[in-house]
């Protein structure tokens, strides 16, 4: 194998390297390395290849110094390019690099001092040290540096990947007021961006659409996805439903779409695990349902660490399997939402008769009062007496009294 290294402080190295090889490593801002094996049929001998590279590099208008080295290993080419001016050919790496100072290697300060005290000044001297002793003194890094000095490290290149952007913009010839033609344009952008996500093994957890409107305003919608997705159809449907729920106030004259790339969710699957809804399909379904019942009425129940009469809330988010071992037969409770205003007859401060919308009867048994209060320092404070009652209609209710009597719900 043969590698070429270009070392220059100001030349556009990536452009020069890309002219000779589609895959190259940018070791440092001033250093690029690439393989030149296949160029022999195009340019000839290694010297002719090096001259072709030099010609390409020197034709650049900046005219700064450019060092080029060709060697059998990538690291040998890098060391040569950084230390020898002009074009350097290393057909056998070790002998030619042997006279270089060891400061050309990535030494730590401590190693530099120790090697200096040993009288080791050149790569050749370092290469000839016993490997076991070097490993004992400096560990794996010492062995790596010795291999580097010997030109014996044969490693694959870390191929440079240009940074992928996930933002596109379309300027429209005519203002678009209908959603359907707008969706065609959004679909085009989404298809391109999802293809980019797929090729980079990424997914998106946030989609932002910005519509520049005819009245010089901007309509921005951001969808935060509970699970990273990269299926353009699902994302398009989510955007469609969001724009239907929150339409722009004027026709759009330009649109831009951006995705926030994240690593996709990895889930360990198993043949014996139960089937669960596909995350993208579930999110689409829940978004559809949110469109019917309201944004804040779909989610997961979450218990709160409080003694509040309703110690729970609804939180958005995807359902996640969480094993729960404790299972008992517990008598369930159902809330009346809102609580029913009630008329209660009392004898000896105990309820004996209840009358509420749809509920009337004699109290057969009552347990209470259970006095609860809390959060008196906030506006959501409560202070009430609760009773569990059995009514003559056969039902069990929980009633409470704060300023009035209410039926909170029934045991079912």
């Amino acid at each position: 194998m043969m590698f070429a290294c270009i070392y220059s402080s100001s030349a556009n190295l990536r452009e020069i390297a890309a002219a000779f090889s589609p895959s190259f490593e940018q070791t440092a801002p001033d250093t690029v390395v690439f393989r030149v094996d296949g160029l022999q049929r195009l340019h000839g001998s290694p010297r002719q290849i090096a001259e072709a590279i030099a010609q390409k590099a020197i034709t650049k208008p900046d005219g700064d110094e450019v060092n080029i080295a060709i060697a059998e290993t990538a690291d040998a080419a890098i060391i040569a390019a950084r230390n020898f001016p002009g074009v350097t050919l290393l057909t056998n790496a070790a002998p030619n690099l042997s006279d270089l100072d060891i400061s050309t290697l990535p030494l730590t300060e401590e190693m530099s001092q120790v090697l200096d005290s040993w009288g080791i000044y050149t790569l050749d001297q370092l290469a000839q040290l016993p490997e076991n002793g070097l490993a004992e003194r400096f560990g794996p890094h010492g062995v790596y540096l010795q291999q580097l000095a010997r030109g014996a490290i044969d490693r694959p290149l870390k191929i440079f990947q240009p940074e992928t952007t996930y933002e596109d913009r379309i300027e429209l010839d005519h203002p678009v007021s209908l959603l359907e033609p707008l969706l065609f344009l959004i679909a085009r952008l989404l298809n391109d961006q999802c293809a980019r996500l797929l090729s980079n093994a990424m997914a998106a957890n946030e989609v932002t659409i910005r519509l520049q409107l005819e009245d010089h305003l901007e309509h921005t919608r951001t969808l935060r996805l509970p699970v990273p997705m990269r299926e353009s159809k699902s994302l398009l449907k989510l955007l469609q439903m969001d724009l239907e729920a929150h339409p722009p106030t004027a026709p759009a004259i330009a649109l831009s779409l951006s995705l926030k790339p994240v690593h996709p969710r990895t889930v360990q699957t198993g043949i014996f695990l139960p089937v669960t809804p596909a995350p993208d399909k579930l999110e689409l379904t829940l978004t559809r349902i949110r469109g019917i019942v309201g944004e804040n009425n779909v989610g997961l129940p979450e218990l709160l660490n409080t003694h509040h009469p309703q110690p729970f809330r609804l939180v958005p988010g995807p359902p996640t399997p969480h094993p729960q071992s404790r299972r008992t037969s517990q008598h369930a409770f159902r809330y009346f939402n809102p609580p029913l205003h009630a008329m209660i007859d009392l004898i000896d401060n105990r309820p004996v008769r209840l009358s509420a919308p749809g509920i009337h009867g004699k109290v057969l048994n009552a347990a209470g009062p259970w006095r609860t209060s809390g959060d008196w320092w906030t506006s959501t404070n409560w202070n009430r007496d609760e009773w569990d009652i059995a009514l003559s209609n056969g039902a069990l209710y929980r009633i409470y009294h704060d300023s009035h009597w209410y039926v909170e719900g029934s045991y079912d």
Partner: protein
Amino acid sequence: MNPNAARVTTLGLRPDAKIRECLPPGLAPLDAMLGGFPRGAIAEILGPESSGRTTLVHSLLAASTAQLEICAYVDTDDSFDPVSAAAAGVALSQLVWIRCGHNAGHALKAADYLLHAGGFGVIVLDLCQVPPGISNRIPISYWYRFRRALENTPTILALAEKEPLAKSCASLMLAIERKKTIWTGAPGFSLLREVELEAASRKPVRPATAQFKARSLA
């Protein structure tokens, strides 16, 4: 004639008969009577107020979530109590809760979307507090549509209600009744301790009933 088919017939099994997987709700007497709630079908849980319908629904959800399945609760009248559900063993992180704000039409649409999304273990459609005047006006076509959507899936659609609604579309119809309420403590200082519930299978009709207890949260 296919010789294999002949052999199956001689064993007394109909070749076209479906063997349905079941989900036992984890209440021993009921499990013994039913064997479990059939998957891929509609199950109706009937009863008047305080009969124990919701208790049975919570047990079914707990059994499903214990198998790491994702469940959904379509709460027509915003009556769901996560505290008693969690106490019954329902893993709340696996339960999608949809509050429909007293709108039965929204509840039916939400259930329809969930059924067609697929992948759920149990979907509960809570119609317990829907007035009969509204629940009786639900078109029968909804139940046929739901039954069709459930076929060949592992999902159970559990309807909690006062009177039967899905009728011929339901594969299981359980009538729940509260038989006894147990209060402890002296008169004037009593405490609601537990209830004894009885479940009777109206479809398929079984002569036996299952009695089980449910402890109060207090």
